[in-house]
């Protein structure tokens, strides 16, 4: 793990904080610009397995298993004005903490792990939803700045308590 005082750590942390702002402000086109063309965006299904946490996810089934095409389609859908599930939109807050940065496997990449707590409020009388997860990201250096090349989202619930994932983590 890189020191909390390292410049790389600061850069990675800044990337995540700015990204959270884009997501909460629903600036999805700007968010798409932060993604590498070969982005792999996954959120495997978590299960309650005996004895160990390691086996507590499904290898072959995910809530999200996205590439740039499918992420773009999801965002295009929000732009149609007919994505009822987010009209009116949810009010969300992505709380990003416990950021740890590591050397990547390629020279131009860093690995950054973070905790995220998503607060999601819809309408006036529904209870708000919480989604808690750890994210393991690969950030790649480009001329335009850091780009998200890979994200693995490990939810802490085996049964999600939010009506859908019309939100990103």
């Amino acid at each position, binding site marked *: 793990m890189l020191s909390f005082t390292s410049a790389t750590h600061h850069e990675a942390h800044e990337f995540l904080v700015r990204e959270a702002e884009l997501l909460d402000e629903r600036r999805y086109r700007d968010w798409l610009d932060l993604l590498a063309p070969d982005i792999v965006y996954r959120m495997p299904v978590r299960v309650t397995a*005996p004895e160990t946490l390691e086996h507590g996810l499904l290898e072959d089934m995910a809530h*999200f298993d996205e590439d740039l095409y*499918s992420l773009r389609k999801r965002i295009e859908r929000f732009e149609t004005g007919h994505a009822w*599930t987010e009209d009116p939109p949810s009010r969300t807050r992505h709380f990003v903490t416990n950021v740890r940065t590591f050397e990547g496997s390629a020279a131009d990449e860093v690995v950054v792990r973070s905790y995220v707590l998503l607060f999601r409020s819809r309408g006036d009388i*529904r209870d708000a939803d919480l989604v808690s997860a750890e994210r393991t990201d690969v950030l790649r250096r480009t001329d335009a700045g850091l780009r998200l090349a890979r994200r693995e989202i490990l939810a802490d619930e085996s049964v*999600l308590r939010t*009506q859908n994932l019309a939100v990103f983590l």
Partner: protein
Amino acid sequence: MAVDVAQLTADIAAGDIPALIYNDRDVFELERERIFGSAWLFLAHEAEIPSAGDYVVRRIVDDSFIVIRDEQGRVRVHFNMCLHRGMQLCRAERGNASHFRCPYHGWSYSNAGELVGVPFHADAYGGEHGLSPKEKTLVTPGRVAIYNGLIFASLDPAAPELEDYLGGFRYYLDFYTRQSDAGLDVRGPQRWRVKANWKIGAENFCGDSYHTPHTHVSVVEIELFVDTKARKRKQGALYFTDNGGGTTYKLPPGTYEERAGYVGYPPELIESQRRTWSAEQQALIADAGFMPSAATLFPNLSLVHNWPAVNEEGLIVPFISIRLWQPVGPGETEVYSWFAVDRSAPDWFKQASYKAYLMCFGSSGMFEQDDVENWTSITQMARGRLAQRLNLYNRMGIDREGKLLHDPVEGWPGPGRAFVGFGEYNQRELLNLWSRYLANGSAAPVAGR
């Protein structure tokens, strides 16, 4: 307020839906006893537990069951409660076990459900004099049976045979669950909780083609799945038979091969479908020209088959999903959603079909997102006082006197009755079944009516 089942039944038979049924504690208690206490209910698919000792834990409302393959390869369903003092025996969701040992006092059971170990048997029970383990096995539901790998249970020991319960619906169920003799690969389930009544999803999948062009208009606009537009959707047929029904899409003219190819099946899968399905089943696609889409088996098992574009080049690939609307309470449902694909399919197809599924259905699916928003809103509205006075309008396809506006499809190749165009034929059938179960605990007609 006690439920007036006779009034509910009469209203529903007349094409009205008392709005309160979507969020009422007393209605839910009756459903729990008379529907979920007797109907055949889906638990798991055999492909989830391929090897001896493999298990998944599933529920029927509040009852937890271990669904496991024993050492002889037989599928067993055990009530997940220790016979001694009632502890939940298995607290994992899936795994592999030859035995289960209760965490409380250590009673142990084989995966076939036999009590095989009692700590301090001689000291504590005086050996066989006090307790004969051989005579004790975990409790089982009333009946368990399997069709195309789908494991069903009924809590009622006197339930009819599963094959009879499925009846004519088997003809349609095979499209989703037996595309070749290799059977299905099943992935998942994704599980999530929605603040919606379980019946709304079941009704929607069994026959609501009318919602598709509006609820899912965004999916057409982004060119993910274009057949959902109204002009195409209303050409589909809606069928119902015995305890289940579903929706279809009208296919463009062509042979079986051309039509199955239109929804994205590659030649090798088309070939195995033709080897596997009866001539009558193939006629639905080849002659009548309809492709199955969403369907529901009463009470809470649904299926869906759609064919979106999975990449930039517009490659069309079909997917199948199996889903369960597991009631948590009158206003809450746990959705279990599996991806299913023919086991003999080539790897590229399996992967592309999985992608198609994730984009459309499941916890993040672009169809499902908008459906659930509607269903939670209905459920929320249904709990108030005015909803107790309101009868919702379930009469599409019949006139004021209750006569059909259109004739059923002539020469429909499958079991049951089918109509082309928009109509709430299937929702009426499903709710009529529902009210008969509320009255009788079975599908038998209500006495004296």
